């Protein structure tokens, strides 16, 4: 039969009037799309290899290039979309699982876009954040059940407060391991978090020696592969996070291919260079909440009870009862990662079909912990596809203490979400270990851009809070009266614990 390969998805348009044959595109593309033909003095672009990362477009000095999505020529129908047909064709050729990167891109309802915020009118004054102080400071960690204020001389806090993470804004950088992203990308995240006053997360790949100095602003992760976990590592971080699952691929482990395990990564992960870094799907020592409690306390022992220990799980159907178990197991914070959360590599079928959206998960977990009277025992950090400041503020109002962002941070560093992280050929120098590519990400520029993003979102959050007449993020936390649902079913509104638009207080 005729070899049936899926058609390509992008067309490169070159404006020949503008192309000066400088060949920057040809030199830069890691997918070898562009090539200079000296005989004809033209640059030939092979669109079939293009992944749509837009790096050539960005580097072209005369803006002669445009990367466009091409329309498939199939006779598509509602069920048999071009994507479905292409996937079958590709699998019929390869006989394997389809890999992909980043988060779920399927059009499940995005509840953030169906929730609207409140604002003050007449009966309560709004606040101008440019003229009056606004507080975004957030503390992550176990809060005491009650506090004792005593002393005859005046009020003095007598209760001992457990160790807390202090955030300048309720936004942290989510876990991305050194290995899945480049040294420079980790460096930028660490520095931006330190400068701004928030936290970044090592992911499961250990902490490179050079980044130990950012320890006070680092959350160190302990995952099923236990890469790079030592007592020193645990004590260097400000907090420890046990990773059980990831939103993009709940129930699935990780696999960093051997070619990405370079010398420094092998040192950081404590595995031989060039070998595959395999994270098992479960922690083989955790098969129950009781087992989890043992690990939590083992880590607390190892750090002399000085660091908050959290547990990260993917948002799945039973997320609320599992979270309750995690809090009862002794976690100081829980991280819930929704199905739109990103990844460096995951089977496409898992990424697009497993898990639940973070909006619902946030609401049900917060409600469950409140009902059980244990909400104060752990902070709730939510993750998975936070695209803008309004998503963040809505999550806080639904009951989250803080959010984790990763995809947005990558976009700030140049990423265009082409979903090819797993190829290791990231033209932007982020999801790659190729020395030709990693140096394209100047951590100084990336740090600046990440800090700008945090600053911009903080300003916007203050702006929206001011509109609601709220001057501290603490007053908004779990304040679902500030939210209303648009176009949602009764059941969805019930799950989110919010009223419909039009319903008054």
């Amino acid at each position, binding site marked *: 039969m005729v070899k049936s390969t899926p058609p390509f998805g992008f067309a490169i348009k070159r404006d020949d*009037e*503008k192309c*000066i*044959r*400088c*060949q*920057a595109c040809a*030199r*830069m593309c890691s997918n070898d799309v562009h090539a200079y033909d000296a005989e004809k003095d033209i640059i030939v672009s092979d669109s079939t290899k293009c992944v749509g990362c837009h790096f050539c477009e*960005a*580097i072209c*000095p*005369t803006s002669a290039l445009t990367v466009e999505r091409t329309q498939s020529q199939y006779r598509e129908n509602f069920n048999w979309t071009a994507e479905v047909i292409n996937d079958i064709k590709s699998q019929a050729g390869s006989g394997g699982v389809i890999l992909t990167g980043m988060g779920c891109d399927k059009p499940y309802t995005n509840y953030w876009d169906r929730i609207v915020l409140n604002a003050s009118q007449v009966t309560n004054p709004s606040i101008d954040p440019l003229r009056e102080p606004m507080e975004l400071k957030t503390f992550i960690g176990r809060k005491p059940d009650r506090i004792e204020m005593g002393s005859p001389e005046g009020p003095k806090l007598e209760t001992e407060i457990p160790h807390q993470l202090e955030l300048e804004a309720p936004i942290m950088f989510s876990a991305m391991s050194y290995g899945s992203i480049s040294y420079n990308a980790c460096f930028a995240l660490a520095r931006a978090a330190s400068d701004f006053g928030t936290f970044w997360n090592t992911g499961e790949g250990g902490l490179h020696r050079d980044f130990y100095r950012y320890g006070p602003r680092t959350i160190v992760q302990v995952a099923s592969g236990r890469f790079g976990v030592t007592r020193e590592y645990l004590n260097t971080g400000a907090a420890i996070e046990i990773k059980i699952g990831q939103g993009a691929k709940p129930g699935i482990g990780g696999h960093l291919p051997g070619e990405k395990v370079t010398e420094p990564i092998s040192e950081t992960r404590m595995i031989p260079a060039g070998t595959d870094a395999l994270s098992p799907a479960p922690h083989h020592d955790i098969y129950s909440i009781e087992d989890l409690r043992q690990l939590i306390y083992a880590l607390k022992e190892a750090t002399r009870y000085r660091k908050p220990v959290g547990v990260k799980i993917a948002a799945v159907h039973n997320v609320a009862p599992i979270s309750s178990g995690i809090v009862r197991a002794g976690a100081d914070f829980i991280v819930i990662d929704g199905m739109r959360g990103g990844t460096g590599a995951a089977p496409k079928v898992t990424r697009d079909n497993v898990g639940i959206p973070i909006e619902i998960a946030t609401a049900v977990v917060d409600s469950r912990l409140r009902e059980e009277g244990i909400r104060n025992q752990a902070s709730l950090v939510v993750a998975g596809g936070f695209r803008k400041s309004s998503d963040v503020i809505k999550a806080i109002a639904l009951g989250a203490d803080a959010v984790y962002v990763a995809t947005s941070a990558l976009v700030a560093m140049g990423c265009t979400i082409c979903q090819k992280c797993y190829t290791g050929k990231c033209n932007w*120098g982020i999801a790659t270990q190729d*020395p*030709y590519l990693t*140096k*394209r990400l*100047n951590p*100084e*520029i990336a740090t600046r851009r990440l800090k700008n993003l945090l600053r911009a979102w903080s300003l916007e959050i203050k702006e929206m809070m001011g509109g609601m007449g709220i001057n501290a993020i603490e007053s908004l936390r779990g304040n679902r009266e500030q939210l209303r649902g648009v176009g949602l079913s009764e059941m969805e509104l019930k799950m989110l614990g919010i009223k419909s638009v039009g319903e008054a207080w």
Partner: protein
Amino acid sequence: MKKIRIREKYCMGCRLCEIYCAVQHSKSKDLVKAYRGEYPKPVPRILVEEKDYLSFAIQCRHCEDAPCIGACITGAMSRDPKSGAVLCDENKCVGCWMCIMMCPFGVIGRGKEKKVISKCDLCVGEKEPACVKNCPNEALVLEEE
């Protein structure tokens, strides 16, 4: 004086510095016009050196004890008292190429149009040299020495 510092670890070898340098020293100072309309084609005064994944852009270092000034037989090569840059007066240059022989960095070239040398002039009159301004990854920075 302010000099261009090379940060090779951020140079990705895109050679945009060469392109912008050439255009800055072209007649039209316009990217498309300079490359598509001018003859001879503009030549850059900066050069990207590459070996495997190491690359960096090098241009005249404007040395403190510039050997090219001593080697110049006509006095065309001199130090600009204001900026401290080593500049060549094209009206005096006779194209003997002695400076090219002497330059320890190999960053002086021969002009294409006239028989005079071509070298980095730190884009005198501009706020920032074209290569520094247009490096997409800030691999070239202008710094007070």
